């Protein structure tokens, strides 16, 4: 109580403010030490596990390599080779293609699923139950989920057999497996939940009376979706987009398995370099990929403010 009174007395009298300031600053340093100490553990963890590895990769990307040795240096050789080769452009293009198609499909499915869960299921118990149902595929590993597509999609797989039995096709479809289709199918299967979760989360925060208000104002179901739900779900969509795009752009194993090593993306480029012990070249590709992903996210964040969702 006394302190409050003193504070008021100080702020009440303009002449005293200047006199009060140095004293406060002195107290501020003491308070800051505590603050720094509290922030230190996380800072150290981030330094050790995020900043240091990236710094290392960036450093190595300027090194030189021959078939049998790696030479510390500062050379743009790796980058010159990377940007000089049209393989790079084709592979980056393929990566963007995978990312954008996967994004569009996961968004369509994810939005629909989240919409159904958030607005059509009335009881919360049911919502939670169905939501957990969505996570069941995550109980097994990525690789197993991917591999399990192979007997289904293969030349003599279940899909082709069934279609032939139904008389829809005469010849087995060749493009079902070891193709872009298979790669994107697996991506969608693996990553849709990363879209569902943030979108569902945002939708659950929409006040249900807004939907009634929209109806009261004469909005049809579609109009409510377009003019109310969609704009209010944007931050969730953006977070889901960041998840899906970064996961797909950084992936290499899905592309290798599902395309039968016939397709490439940037991740496979890096993985191949590593397989050949060409670390500097792999590091350079990784740096370019990192920058690309950061630019993509930067552009996305220009459109939607996700801060209030965090």
């Amino acid at each position, binding site marked *: 109580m006394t302190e409050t009174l003193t504070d008021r007395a100080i702020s009440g009298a303009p002449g005293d403010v200047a006199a009060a300031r140095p004293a406060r600053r002195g107290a501020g340093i003491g308070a800051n030490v505590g603050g720094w100490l509290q922030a230190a553990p996380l800072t150290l963890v981030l330094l050790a596990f995020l900043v240091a590895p990236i710094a290392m990769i960036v450093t190595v990307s300027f090194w030189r390599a021959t078939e049998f040795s790696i030479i510390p240096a500062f050379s743009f050789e790796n980058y010159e080779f990377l940007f000089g080769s049209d393989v790079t452009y084709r592979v980056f293009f393929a990566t963007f293609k995978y990312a954008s198609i996967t994004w569009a499909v996961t968004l369509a499915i994810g939005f629909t699923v989240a919409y159904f869960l958030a607005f059509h299921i009335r009881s919360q118990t049911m919502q939670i139950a169905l939501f957990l149902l969505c996570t069941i595929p995550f109980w097994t590993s990525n690789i197993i989920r991917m591999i399990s597509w192979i007997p289904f999609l293969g030349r003599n797989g279940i899909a082709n057999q069934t279609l032939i039995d139904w008389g829809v096709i005469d010849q087995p479809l060749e493009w079902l497996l070891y193709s872009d289709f298979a790669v994107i199918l697996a991506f969608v299967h693996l990553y849709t939940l990363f879209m569902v979760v943030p979108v569902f989360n945002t939708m659950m925060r929409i*006040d249900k*009376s*807004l939907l*009634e*208000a*929209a*109806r*009261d*104002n*004469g*909005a*049809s179901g579609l*109009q409510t979706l377009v*003019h*109310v739900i969609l*704009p*209010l779900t944007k931050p969730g969509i953006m977070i889901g987009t960041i998840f899906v795009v970064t996961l797909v752009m950084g992936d290499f194993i899905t592309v290798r398995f599902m395309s039968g090593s016939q397709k490439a993306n940037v991740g496979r480029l890096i993985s191949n370099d590593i397989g050949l012990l060409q670390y500097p070249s792999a590091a350079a590709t990784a740096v370019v990929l990192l920058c690309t992903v950061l630019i993509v996210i930067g552009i996305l964040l220009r459109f939607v403010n996700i801060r209030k969702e965090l």
Partner: protein
Amino acid sequence: MRTGKDLELVHLTKRYGDTLAVKDINHVFRNGTYVCLLGPSGCGKSTTLRMIAGHESATEGEIVLDGQDITVLPPAKRGTAMMFQSYALFPHLSVRDNVAFSLRMKGVEKIARHRAADEMLALVDMTHLAERLPAQLSGGQQQRVALARALVTKPRVLLLDEPLSALDPFLRIRVRGELKRLQRELGISFIHVTHSQDEALALADEIVVMNNAVIEQAGSARDVFGAPKTEFVARFIGGHNIMDLDGGRFALRADEVRLTDDGRPATVSQVEYQGDRVAVTAKLGSAEVLALVPEGAFFADPKTPGDAVGLAWDEGRLYRLMA
């Protein structure tokens, strides 16, 4: 007086499974009146309002507005508009776009709908904040925007679901004055759901008191306060004593009880100063009787707890309650 434009509820019933939320209600809301649906929570008043608005389907019965059966029409086609308890403003739209929302849904072009929205904003004195987002407004300002948004559809009946409950007490009194003024200016019916008897008494041309899914009493504010029909109404509206006298149960207004020397003998048990008057509770036998005594009269002959007093009232002021 009945006119063809009235809103009429005919045997209106709402059931949720086995629970009756609204039970066979019949009522005529006269055109151009300010009606308050008053009752405790869970009495069915909000459900009734939401059925009129079309946000809840009626299990049985009809809702007739202006001679037209609107029971199954969608909300926007009924000639009603609803103002929601939490205001339900669209957080991503500016004040002007919120108000213009219904016109946008109808496909009115931008210039025309903004003009209409600005007119409504002028009506509620919010023109200067038209560019703001709802989150940048105070509770009272949001309330006005919600009002403007409901009125822009030119409804014949405006439905207000506890419109003042989110405001602080001071603002509540000011806003209710504005609501009443607006209703008079527009000449349309306002149906206002509330659980506050003060609000209902201050605003309503007609008060409809609901309890346990039925209408207990309907009438002008003076009729309901001056002559409550049932014990529930007398208790809920406040300011009444319920007395068991020979021949039944009666309601007596607390301000009709006088402290005298020659009335029924009682003992003062509590004295509460309320500014303009003093609330004296006295024990009369086993019953407690509340007397609201004007401040001047009380202090001319002050009492303290434990004092013996006589209680008197005009027999004509006793209202027999229905069982």
